[in-house]
């Protein structure tokens, strides 16, 4: 195990931000810490990185790994150019080859704005520079704290495929926090956190299977009769539609075949990460 956290706990006064979280991170794995705002994701990550001292519990690395971190906010200087920013950071490390910044700028497609000031870049460009900065020391583990928050969908996809490519090609271990559920979908390992506790863990598919129900929407000329025919309780009823939350696809098929004559149309939607997430964390806003 590359990284292990045992009973990681952090309290701020009365408030328990992270509550006895256990994590095992394998080398080369892709872990997503998923949770709503204020769930304790960033606090957990900061303790893993060593920037925050746990109130209790322990973080253990199996050797001294090189860490790369993409922080939630910008940590580069607005009035310096991309080149200067990266060069300054490169100078802070030992054993960084002289051409590292050039190589990274080509790999991550920064060449067109290397001499532009960081503060004048678009959100997506900044994010790519941030990632380049995190990769300067050729890290073993790349931490990303909500790397795609506030970006448009095109940029999110681009950043996302970049991170996945890095994980594949460089055998990087990636740990990221996000509250975008579709991003967790492609992780090897999803850890759902809320109120500082781990609510669920596993692959995205496992979590969906366990916590997300499938949704069957039926359109019928006689909703009342259809409702009476089906054993399951509908979650929603309108004048001509009836909605069921079902544990499996098989149940849906059974309902459909048994009530064929009463159904004028139907829609079946398998459980998504959204459903699992809402089932786990509730609908309350924070």
């Amino acid at each position, binding site marked *: 195990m590359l990284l292990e956290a045992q009973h990681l706990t952090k309290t701020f006064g009365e408030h328990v931000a992270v509550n006895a979280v256990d994590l095992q991170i394998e080398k080369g794995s892709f872990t997503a810490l998923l949770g709503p705002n204020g769930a304790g994701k960033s606090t957990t990550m900061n303790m893993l990185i*060593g920037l925050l001292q746990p109130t209790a519990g322990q*973080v253990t690395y199996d050797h001294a790994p090189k860490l790369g971190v993409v*922080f939630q906010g910008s*940590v580069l*200087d607005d009035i*310096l150019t991309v080149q200067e920013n990266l060069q300054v950071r490169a100078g*802070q490390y030992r054993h960084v080859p002289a051409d590292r910044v050039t190589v990274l700028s080509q790999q991550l497609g920064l060449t067109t704005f290397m001499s532009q000031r960081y503060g004048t870049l678009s959100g997506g460009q900044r994010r790519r520079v941030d990632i380049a900065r995190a990769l300067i*020391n050729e890290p073993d583990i790349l931490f990303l704290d909500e790397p795609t928050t506030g970006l448009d969908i095109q940029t999110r996809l681009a950043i996302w495929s970049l991170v996945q490519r890095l994980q594949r090609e460089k055998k990087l271990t990636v740990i990221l926090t996000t509250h975008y559920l579709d991003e967790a979908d492609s992780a090897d390992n999803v850890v759902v956190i809320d109120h500082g506790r781990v609510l669920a863990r596993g692959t995205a598919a496992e979590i969906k299977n366990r916590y997300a129900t499938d949704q069957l929407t039926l359109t019928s000329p006689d909703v009342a009769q259809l409702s009476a025919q089906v054993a399951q309780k509908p979650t929603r009823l309108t004048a001509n539609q009836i909605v069921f939350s079902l544990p499996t696809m098989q149940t849906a098929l059974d309902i459909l075949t048994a009530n064929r004559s009463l159904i004028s149309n139907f829609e079946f939607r398998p459980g998504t990460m959204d459903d699992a997430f809402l089932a786990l964390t509730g609908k309350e806003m924070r």
Partner: protein
Amino acid sequence: MLAMIKRNLLLYFRDHSGVFFSLLGALISFILYLVFLKKNMLSSLRQMPDAKILLDTWLIGGTLAITSITTTLSSLALMVTDKEKHIAADLELTDAGPLRLFTSYLISAAVIGALTQLAMFIIMWGGFYLTDGLTLSVTAVLNVLGLMVTSSLLAVVVNAAIVQGVHTVDNLGKLGTIVGTAAGFLVGTYIPIGALPGFAQGMVNFIPGSYVAALYRQFLMDDKLKTAFSGNVTAENAFDRLMGVRLNWSTLLTQQETYLIMGLIFSGAAGLVFGMKWLRIQRRHRFTRER
């Protein structure tokens, strides 16, 4: 560490309006002095030969001492900004390590302090050369240049000790205003030390900048004082005491003693800031262990 110092200096000098206002902040006491106080001071020194030149050099010394204090303090703001914007967290992940990062903030602040003093010196000397025909000997100029470096280093460690307790840029700005206002009086630039009440005179002796100001005045004024007093030691000592050319403990301090005191303050403050920093680092390290 070099990369970091370069970054800090780039950040400072690329912000042109920041540099301008920092210079203006240092100049303002000088300008205010010329406008409001110089005439008054001059009339009280009327019986002295070359009173104008003496007062000019006296003012240059005091202003440079203030500059060393205020510019290093405002340069150290970067340390607080970085902490506030979580840039410090990113920097501490590098191989540079917190102690070297900390040192690089201090060194860049000292460089900025020395360069600003140099700029101020050129501006003031230039101004007085044009108005009063002020000339300085090569020795005086070399000594002054050396003292710019020493005074910056001293001011940086003393300010760093204060800044350790400040966690927001907003508060540091307020502190800067307080220090900027008080400095002119505390190092005896606005009003001669000898004209201050006894309690205030005692306070002046506790301010590291006072020793810097005294040394500047010695370097700039010494040969002029010798001619002005032509060997009248009693009168010269009285003048030195009044104008803060030499600070008064039980007797007037010699140049060596002044340097020694500055050295002691420097070592004490440096020990304090680095010690505090080291303790903080130790405390954090206990929590992340390797297997």
